[in-house]
């Protein structure tokens, strides 16, 4: 309950800040959308940083390093430090200058002007809004999942289906409403002020929590030593031979359990009472009864060659059933024993782990009593005890290299474009350009270390894993905070996590409203058709519609925050060649721009569908990140078509590429 009270106080403070900033609101649409170009260096740095660091940075990075190890920092954080500032420097300052000079509010206004094409807005608007929605989805989903995890047991009897905590759908809804209110009251100025405050909150609270958790784990050195002993692969980007040996042994045992369960289910084996007694006597591993129940007889059956009568097809069906995967109807592809990798090509039955709630129903209860299991734990134990063990995974150096393309997305984020235009002067960018990589380091290093430590941490004074294998990555940070800190600190850090999430959501909310009013409503209506006040109302209505749509999406099956984020960023990155060429390549033509947008869109859609709509977190294309293919094809299409078509007019070229004095 303490956590819930702290979160509620924080949300109220935020609403207060929104109301305060509304006092400074000048009542014009320009002030609402761009804060009248009044944002100085410090607020620009904090709002740019707060906007780019979202659930992806805190919740996603911890969860991903829990799954993939310390190399996760190199995948996105250090490359972002280089590329984000590069984008601020190469694109942001120049776009700010053009925006200031020609009065742009949105990217589409700039593209329409630069490409001498009105219709480019019609094609770009749905693409940009369509890509902002999954970005919003990351924040909305993560806020629900974090609040639910941290408030488990807050209620005596209510919300039993959500472990007696605030349900994710309710938490996400409250967060959306709070952000909507302060964005509505304060516009861009309120957003920038809230971002500045929230960025300071999540950075300071994040660092404090990091040191509290590392102390609980026995100090920095002990926490890392545990990883070296139990999961050395998580310390590097190659696979440690010891981890590989451990996995192969565990996988062989798991195969045997799968064969045994299949044989029993299909009447091919039934151990007598004497055999069962002997199996239990011979089985020495100190496992809980629910694991021993099939491990012990499976080991006995193997030792006595009782499973040799299974055909290869039956063995494959046994593996698929044990791993809760959808088996093919025909035996055609099951003629040879499936490897673990081949097994993973078969989709898993949706919601299969819900069986854990039935299997462990006697243990489930209100987590206020520490003996009780939560529903999440029941599902987690089910996954860890029934499904195949995770294979240790290294990082493919080519994939690592091509991850570099992902942070280029910053160049095309519409909400960042809008933030760039709020700057008071070009010099306001300097602090953001320099400090951004350092700030990324301050936020990501503790998160990645925490994720790595959690792979091997145990509950204080026990040998029980703090976070079991197959634990949902999105919930790792919240689970660690809950288990290792006091309710008060847990509540504060949750406020910090929510601060990071909301400091991105607000800019995105504001941006979609601005794009709709500027690029669609005022662009296609008669001059003076709408007053400033009406435009603000229209912007707010569109924001509510998009937030409602995103909220509905968030109620479906959650994906890994990191995976979803990478797909969303890849889409924006694939449009990077367009913005870069618009500013630095005189020869870019309208047709070349269309070709780039179409090539990027079609490639993104094809590869996204091929990855089973982000369900496969390890998807690659030709051994590279999909974004590499998207950028290559978009660039090639843009260059070839531009060179084949008529160059832009002299007037446009003089406007955007003035000759140096």
């Amino acid at each position: 309950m303490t956590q819930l009270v702290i979160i509620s106080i924080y949300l109220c403070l935020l609403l207060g800040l929104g109301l305060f900033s509304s006092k400074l609101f000048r009542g014009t649409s320009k002030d609402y959308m761009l804060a009248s170009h009044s944002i100085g260096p410090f607020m620009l740095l904090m709002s740019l940083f707060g906007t780019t660091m979202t659930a992806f940075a805190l919740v996603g990075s911890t969860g991903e390093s829990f799954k993939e190890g310390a190399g996760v920092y190199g995948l996105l954080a250090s490359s972002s430090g280089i590329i984000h500032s590069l984008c601020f420097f190469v694109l942001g300052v120049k776009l700010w200058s053009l925006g200031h000079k020609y009065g742009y509010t949105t990217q589409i206004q700039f593209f329409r002007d630069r490409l001498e094409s009105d219709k480019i807005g019609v094609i770009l608007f749905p693409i940009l809004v369509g890509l902002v929605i999954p970005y919003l989805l990351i924040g909305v989903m993560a806020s629900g999942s974090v609040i639910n995890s941290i408030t488990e047991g807050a209620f005596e009897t209510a919300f039993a289906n959500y472990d007696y905590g605030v349900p994710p759908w309710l938490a996400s809804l409250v967060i959306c409403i709070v952000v909507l209110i302060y964005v509505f009251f304060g516009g861009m100025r309120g957003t920038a002020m809230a971002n500045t405050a929230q960025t300071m909150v999540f950075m300071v609270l994040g660092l404090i929590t990091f040191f509290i958790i590392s102390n609980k784990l026995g100090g920095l050195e002990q926490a890392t030593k545990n990883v070296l002993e139990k999961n050395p692969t998580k310390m590097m980007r190659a696979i440690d031979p010891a981890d590989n040996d451990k996995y192969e042994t565990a996988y062989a045992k798991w195969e045997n359990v799968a064969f045994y369960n299949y044989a029993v289910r299909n009447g091919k084996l039934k151990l007598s009472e004497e055999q069962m007694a002997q199996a239990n006597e011979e089985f020495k591993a100190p496992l809980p009864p629910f694991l021993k129940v099939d491990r012990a007889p499976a080991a006995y059956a193997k030792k006595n060659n009782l499973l040799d009568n299974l055909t290869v097809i039956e063995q494959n069906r046994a593996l698929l059933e044990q791993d809760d995967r959808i088996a093919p109807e025909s035996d055609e592809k099951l003629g040879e024993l499936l490897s673990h990798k081949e097994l993973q090509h078969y989709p898993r039955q949706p919601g299969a782990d819900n069986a854990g709630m039935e299997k462990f129903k006697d243990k489930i209860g209100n987590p206020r009593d520490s003996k009780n299991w939560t529903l999440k734990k029941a599902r987690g134990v089910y996954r860890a005890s029934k499904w195949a063990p995770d294979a240790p995974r290294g990082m493919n150096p080519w994939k690592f290299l091509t991850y570099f393309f992902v942070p280029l997305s910053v160049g095309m984020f519409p909400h960042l474009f809008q933030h760039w235009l709020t700057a008071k002067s070009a010099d306001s960018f300097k602090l953001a350009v320099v400090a951004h990589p350092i700030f990324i380091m301050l936020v990501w290093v503790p998160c990645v270390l925490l994720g790595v430590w959690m792979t091997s941490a145990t509950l204080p004074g026990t040998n029980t894993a703090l976070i079991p294998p197959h634990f949902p990555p999105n919930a790792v940070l919240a689970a660690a905070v809950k288990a290792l800190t006091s309710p008060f600190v847990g509540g504060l850090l949750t406020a910090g996590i929510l601060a990071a999430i909301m400091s991105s959501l607000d800019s995105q909310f504001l941006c979609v409203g601005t794009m709709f009013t500027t690029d669609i409503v005022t662009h296609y209506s008669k001059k003076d058709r709408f007053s400033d006040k009406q435009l603000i109302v229209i912007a707010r209505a569109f924001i509510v519609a998009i937030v409602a749509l995103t909220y509905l999406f968030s109620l479906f099956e959650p994906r890994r925050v990191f995976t979803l984020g990478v797909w969303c960023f890849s889409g924006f990155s694939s449009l990077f060649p367009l913005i870069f060429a618009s500013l630095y390549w005189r020869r870019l033509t309208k047709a070349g721009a269309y070709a780039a947008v179409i090539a990027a869109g079609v490639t993104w859609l094809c590869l996204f569908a091929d990855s089973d709509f982000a369900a496969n977190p390890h998807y690659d294309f030709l051994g590279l990140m999909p974004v590499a293919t998207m950028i290559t094809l978009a660039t090639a299409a843009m260059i070839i078509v531009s060179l084949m078509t008529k160059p832009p007019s002299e007037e446009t070229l003089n406007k955007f590429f003035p000759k140096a004095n």
Partner: protein
Amino acid sequence: MNKSTGKWIIIGLVILLIILHHDVWNWDDKEPVFGFMPMALLWQAGISLGAGATWFLATKIAWPEFEVDEAPATEVAAAQEGGE
């Protein structure tokens, strides 16, 4: 130093950072540095510090100059939003 030379120095440093970022020589190094920091993390944190230093230099030797007051900021806004 003129801006053009400054720009080339920054381009060179960014390329160097990109090359150093791809630290294949640390791929299978699991030994922690300072007793707790994975090498894969420490090296990349160093890249972040290097990026900060590079961009600091960029603000000193390659920062662009703009004549921002040469035109009113409302040209497009007036045309597209019905004026202010």
